[in-house]
């Protein structure tokens, strides 16, 4: 079977769940070959093997952290040229999409972004995208070059398939251009202790109806009772009530959790574009005409300032 090159992402040394989703999809169309940027340790190899990687490639070089995007793209391109894989899979996100774009140019290949499903096809895999703010599903294939595909998080349930991967270290000769955009400083964010928004199974989100920064404590209360991530609409982040990195919508993140609870969010098309793929949607809004109720599986017309604290209490009792 042809290899499928999967770019692995790690946070604090741990493989991110979206990378395991990529390995799950890769197994449908070939043999997963994982590419790790940075040094690999036994724990990383064990996790990747448990999810079906038959080979783990490692490119470890200071350029990968000292310069923006281009070194990572050159590393992926180098390994792709080595393997001639059936596809290159990368997680959708600012870094992943830019890496994929450059790899497509370097390989002179077609690129499809934001896939929500990949199935084996006649030659090239069939890639499903959720488009037009999630109102249409489109099936496409790449017809030229090595298919380069970025995949939305939470699009597939992670499955294990234990194997014992071989580990190979790869040297990449970076171009001068790879050293052109220098990272001169990094500021780490304080961890909230909650799940990462893009990977979370449950998301609790607040919008304009929250009315204040303080009211977001009510959203956090429900989130913590459910072990969920917290999100906000653009209206709320623009007001400064919650951090921009938690914004869901067209200019923020696209999430597709099992459960999305929207409080004080009207459900404008720009917000729906970021959460319409959620499996189950619960809405609390005081306006019975809010469009969010059109897509909600369960809606409560009421004041979130009383409903949310009562819900936190109720969840504590059950």
């Amino acid at each position, binding site marked *: 079977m042809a290899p499928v090159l999967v770019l692995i992402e790690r946070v604090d040394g741990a493989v991110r769940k979206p990378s395991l989703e990529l390995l799950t999809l890769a197994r449908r169309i070939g043999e997963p070959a994982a590419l790790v940027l940075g040094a690999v340790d036994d724990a990383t190899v064990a996790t990747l093997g448990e999810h079906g990687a038959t080979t783990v490639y490692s490119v470890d070089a200071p350029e990968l952290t000292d310069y*923006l995007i*281009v070194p990572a*793209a050159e590393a992926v391109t180098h390994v792709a040229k080595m393997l001639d894989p059936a596809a290159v899979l990368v997680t959708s996100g*600012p870094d992943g*999409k*830019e890496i994929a*774009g450059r790899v*497509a*140019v370097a390989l002179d290949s*077609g*690129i*499809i*972004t*934001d896939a929500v499903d990949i199935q084996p096809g006649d030659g090239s895999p069939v890639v499903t995208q959720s488009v037009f703010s999630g*109102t*249409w599903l*489109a*099936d*496409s*294939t*790449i*017809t030229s070059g090595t298919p380069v595909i970025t995949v939305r998080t939470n699009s597939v349930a992670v499955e294990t398939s234990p194997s014992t991967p071989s580990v190979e270290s790869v040297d990449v000769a970076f171009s001068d251009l790879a050293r*052109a*955009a*220098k*990272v001169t*400083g*990094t*500021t780490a*964010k304080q961890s909230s202790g909650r799940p*990462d928004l*893009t990977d979370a199974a449950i998301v609790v989100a607040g919008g304009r109806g929250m009315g204040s920064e303080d009211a977001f404590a009510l959203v956090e209360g429900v989130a913590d009772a*459910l072990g969920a991530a917290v999100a906000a609409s653009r209206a709320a982040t623009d007001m400064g009530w919650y951090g*921009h*990195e938690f914004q869901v919508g*067209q*200019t923020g993140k696209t999430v597709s959790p*099992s459960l999305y609870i929207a409080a004080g969010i009207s459900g404008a*098309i*720009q917000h729906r574009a970021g959460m319409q793929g959620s499996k*189950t949607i*619960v809405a*609390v809004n005081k306006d*019975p005409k809010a469009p969010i*109720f059109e*897509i*909600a*599986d*369960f*809606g*409560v*017309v*009421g*004041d979130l300032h009383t*409903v*949310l604290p009562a*819900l936190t209490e*109720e*969840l504590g009792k*059950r």
Partner: protein
Amino acid sequence: MKIVVLVKYVPEPTATWTYADDLTIDRAGVEGRLSELDEYAVEQALQLTEKGLDAEIVYLTMGPAKAVDGLRKALSMGGTSGVHVLDDALHASDAMATSLVLAKAIEAVGDVDLVMSGMASTDAEMSVVPSMVAARLGWPQVTFAAALEVDGSTVRIRRDSDTGSQNVEASLPAVVSVTDQTGEARYPSFKGIMAGKKKPVTTMTLADIGVDASAVGAGAAKSVTASANVRPPKEAGTVITDEGDGAAKIADFLASAKFI
């Protein structure tokens, strides 16, 4: 200094979009507008000159005849001139062809020091074209800027991510994309709209920028959409009015769906 701002004329986001018979977005059937995300790039380019950078601002678009309206909108906000790559062969171009055409057009404009764009288009939402243009030009990419500054020879940005933020710098010429965090775009004034109508817009064909028609359009597309279907509408959910029992009803629902 010369700044080129890439702008895209897109279907109005609040309209109902559909596919044309050839499975490309039906652009003729809906109102269009300058992509909101590109307005942030226009705003930042204008702010750079207002802060004292001595620069000419050229807006560059590719698209059907109507796309000139996007250039006019940008010109009504400020800036010097517009370039419209207009050619029937461009219809149904993919990101690979789009990035090729934009890079060749930037070279045709000539003596460009800085290319700016939004973080994505609001129609295709791919977010790949700025990095692909940078790759084709062989210029540094300094992308997803939440804040930026430019002096005579260097661009510095702040790029935010889930885990923190990075400060990144590169020498010019470079390609910069900006996020909505850079700050609200201005509304054109009446005076600006009148002035924008008189600013020069040059139309270029593929021949003018040295791109063969066989390298663009549906024929050159490296991906093809085989089928597209409206997602089946969600079954209508239950909506209740809170009478003091709203929270308990939600908890009941979550329990029935096995979330708790």
